[in-house]
């Protein structure tokens, strides 16, 4: 222990000199911005320190700060600890620790990759659906020589069976665990599960969400063709088809083929749902105005929506939960500051803020990540947390009033411990409810932005863009371009809302509806 204290002491001493210079420099050269940077660094150090102190046990650091007055001791410890950790991290980055980690990771991946590369039952390669039809009507290259539609159908079926099997396994496993391994013979969650079993509307929502998740997770296998080939770089891939004019199998660039399979509103140039094009390609939902396959576009679009949605909802939920716990536990000034901040963010209509921020940040490096997806997620999270915080604040305040929180304070539980053990578990229900409602809203918002040509950049597929493409053709032969993606957005949003409703009924049947108000607006992501 003594050694620890000494080392911390030396580290602090060593850090003091350069830090002081840096602080002075920062303050002098950058004025208010410098002050902000210094303040933020101290805050960051403090936060890291709190986390570290919870793990390490604070006795070791006590010696180093013994000289300070008692009021300052604890924050100083935290900042000191955090500083040490941060400096350590910086040194590690500076001297190539990251490379080492990277190398280790690569080695590990290399070991796993062969296993991952094994053919799977649901893979496109196992059940291929791409081929060409000879004049005698037989198909080449497809699974068992079946027509592409049937082969594709078989694959879709297999994937869904696979997912179903997983779900069944999880459910049976849970029941077994509950019956044989869990020590408590009853938990509050059991009641929730029982209520869910009688909740038809929620089950409908779960099925819809399940289908959506399957679509996103298995997008590469579900599509009739690959995204790489059909959507991203059609001019770097070729396909074979039987050309009746030439009377033989010919190769053509996918891009060139696409230009001949466009759907632009009249019978001569339209490929509706369930049709084959002249290159033997099957289009379950028809083609887009640029001749690309709508179904493939949609399944990959689902993936983008899901990733962006989860990222943004995850980020805003974490922020909102932390803020809700803080404002409910400390109240007073902390709460007031958060009220004003969130009111300010909510004061700008959300969609306007989204439009503004996506355009503003379009040229920053952030926008390059995941074709603008990461930026979109961050913007959605930054504009969305106040709504969630509002929703969590009420329940948090109620929970903070409970006697058990008081009792925990009375036997000396720390504020963090109280928030984690005695408040957070009660928020989890609300967290799930609002997250699912918000996810629906976020998917709407993403679609709305891409409808306006913002957000995720082409050619990355996004549902809203398909709706936009088909705008002028709604009343024509090519109605499918707008209608199908729009209907899917609607269905998915309804699905997530249904899950949210069900969770609300299931988690807390007596919950007062005061909490329902924000959800009603939140589930729509700013009026899209």
């Amino acid at each position: 222990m003594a050694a620890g204290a000494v080392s911390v002491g030396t580290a602090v001493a060593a850090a003091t000199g350069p830090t002081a210079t840096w602080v002075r420099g920062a303050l002098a050269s950058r004025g208010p911005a410098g002050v902000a940077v210094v303040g933020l660094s101290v805050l960051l150090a403090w936060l890291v320190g709190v986390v570290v102190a919870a793990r390490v046990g604070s006795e070791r650091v006590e010696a180093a700060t013994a000289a300070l007055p008692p009021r300052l001791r604890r924050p100083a410890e935290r900042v000191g600890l955090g500083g040490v950790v941060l400096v350590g991290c910086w040194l590690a980055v500076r001297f190539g620790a990251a490379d080492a980690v990277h190398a280790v990771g690569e080695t590990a991946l290399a070991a796993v990759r062969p296993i991952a590369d094994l053919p799977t039952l649901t893979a496109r390669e196992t059940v291929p659906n791409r081929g060409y039809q000879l004049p005698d009507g037989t198909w080449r290259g497809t699974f068992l020589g079946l027509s592409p539609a049937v082969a594709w159908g078989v694959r879709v079926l297999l994937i869904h069976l696979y997912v179903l099997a997983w779900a069944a396994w999880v459910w049976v496993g849970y029941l077994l665990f509950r019956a044989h391994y869990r020590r408590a013979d009853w938990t509050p969650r059991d009641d929730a599960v029982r209520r869910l079993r009688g909740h038809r509307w929620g089950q409908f929502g779960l099925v819809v969400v399940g289908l959506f998740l399957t679509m996103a997770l298995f997008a590469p296998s579900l599509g009739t063709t690959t995204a790489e080939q059909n959507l991203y770089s059609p001019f770097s891939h070729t396909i074979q088809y039987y050309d009746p004019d030439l009377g033989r199998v010919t190769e053509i660039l996918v891009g060139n083929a696409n230009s001949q399979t466009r759907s632009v509103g009249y019978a001569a140039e339209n490929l509706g749902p369930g049709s084959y094009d002249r290159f033997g390609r099957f289009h379950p939902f028809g083609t887009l105005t640029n001749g690309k396959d709508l179904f493939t576009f949609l399944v990959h679009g689902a993936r983008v929506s899901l990733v962006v949605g989860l990222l943004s909802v995850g980020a805003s939920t974490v922020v909102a939960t932390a803020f809700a716990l803080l404002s409910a536990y400390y109240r007073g000034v902390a709460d007031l500051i958060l009220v004003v901040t969130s009111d300010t963010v909510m004061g700008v209509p959300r969609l306007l803020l989204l439009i503004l921020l996506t355009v503003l940040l379009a040229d920053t490096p952030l926008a390059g990540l995941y074709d603008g997806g990461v930026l979109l997620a961050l913007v959605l999270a930054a504009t969305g947390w106040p709504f969630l915080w509002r929703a969590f604040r009420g329940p948090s305040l109620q929970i903070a009033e409970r006697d058990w929180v008081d009792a925990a304070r009375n036997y000396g539980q720390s504020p963090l411990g109280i928030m984690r053990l005695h408040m957070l578990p009660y928020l989890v229900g609300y967290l799930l409810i609002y997250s699912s409602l918000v996810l629906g809203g976020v998917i709407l918002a993403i679609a709305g932005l891409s409808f306006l040509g913002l957000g995720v950049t082409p050619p990355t597929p996004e549902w809203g863009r398909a709706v936009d493409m088909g705008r002028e053709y709604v009343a024509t032969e090519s109605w499918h371009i707008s209608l199908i993606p729009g209907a899917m957005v609607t269905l998915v949003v309804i699905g997530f809302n249904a899950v949210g409703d069900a969770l609300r009924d299931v988690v807390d049947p007596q919950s007062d509806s005061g909490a329902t108000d924000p959800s009603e607006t939140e589930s729509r992501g700013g009026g899209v």
Partner: protein
Amino acid sequence: MSDSERSGADRDPLVSVEGLRTYYASERLIGGKPVKAVDGVSFEIGRGETVGIVGESGCGKTTLGRSVLRLEDVDAGRVYFDGRDVTELGRRELKSWRQDAQMVYQNPNTAVNERMTVGQIVREPLDVHGWGTDSDRRDRVAELLETVGLEAEHYHRYPHQFSGGQRQRIGIARALAPEPEFIVLDEPVSALDVSVQAKILNLLTDLQEELNLTYMLIAHDLSVVRHVCDRVGVMYLGKLMELGPTEELFRSPSNPYTRALLSAIPHADPTVSQDRITLRGSPPSPRDPPTGCGFSTRCPFKIRPTEHDAVDEEGWTRIEEFRAVLRDRARNADGFVDGLKRRLGVDDRATPIREVRDDLFGDVSLPEAARERIDRAVATAAEEGVTEATELLDDAFGSVCETEVPDDHPTAAGRLSRCHRHRDEYEEPDEYRTDTR
């Protein structure tokens, strides 16, 4: 006041409270008055003793209990625990002291965390204070559960699976876990049915004997207090009105409020004929307490100004009621909207003060002097305002009860009562009461 008067006769004090004040800040942004929840309370609790604090809702008894445990921010005063000043403790000392003083809560539904198993609940204080090893803690929890009349097998059950009485036992087990010396019992049985109540009270009594605990029992149910406590303090509007050994206090209450409170308890025996005092009105808001003695607005023993000796009992009742109406109106007239209404002359719905007077005094005969004062107040209310009229009446009919805060008066060995009537120049409450009957 000597210490022996405050504490139990022969015990050394474990907890002593001196001039404790706990105010809640007003929710108004500007110009709000604080709620004086606890307003200068002093008492001592001897080791192994049970001191009861009784009072009606809103009198500050729960806040007092929480302030003693430092669960509320105290505005003034000291709380000594075993000679140490608890209000001065730093974070670390406070945390370790927290083991010694625990609390049992009123509502069995909110007292324990329903997302944790019984075992986790009882164990948590042990975890927080790093008590023993993991298996030590388990054993201790099992032992505690059995101590409070539950079973060790209940470790993995959730509170939902228990009845109100059993949940209360869980709460008690949790309070016992850190081996405290002192427990604040905040209405531990008031949410329970009578038959369950009795069991919990028995349990608490047994535990006290077994573990040599010191209790501070907060309750509104006087029969519970009478059954359990060695000494009782009666609270009204944040102040201790009377303090004394239970039996003596119940048998011969000194303070007018205690008398009224005791006489209001319906006795579960119809053959006992009670000399009932029914108080008028409800307790004033602690945000806006009366000047002088807090009980003066409802006190049937109130000292009356000598110049109105001729007014009879019925006359006084009416006068007090008239004053209450005016006070009430004056308070409402403070509001912005009402002020505006009055200025615009829209406020015509409320009966003019004159009619109130006619209603109240129409059928009683008052001496000329008193009647003259009242008429003057009515005129003032019409000309200047209700607040001015109220002040006029205060001048005319007010007494020491409304102007001076009474001190604690020792009324017998180990007993204190806060009432002006204990002063030499006035009749003692019991003398007064027999007089007027």
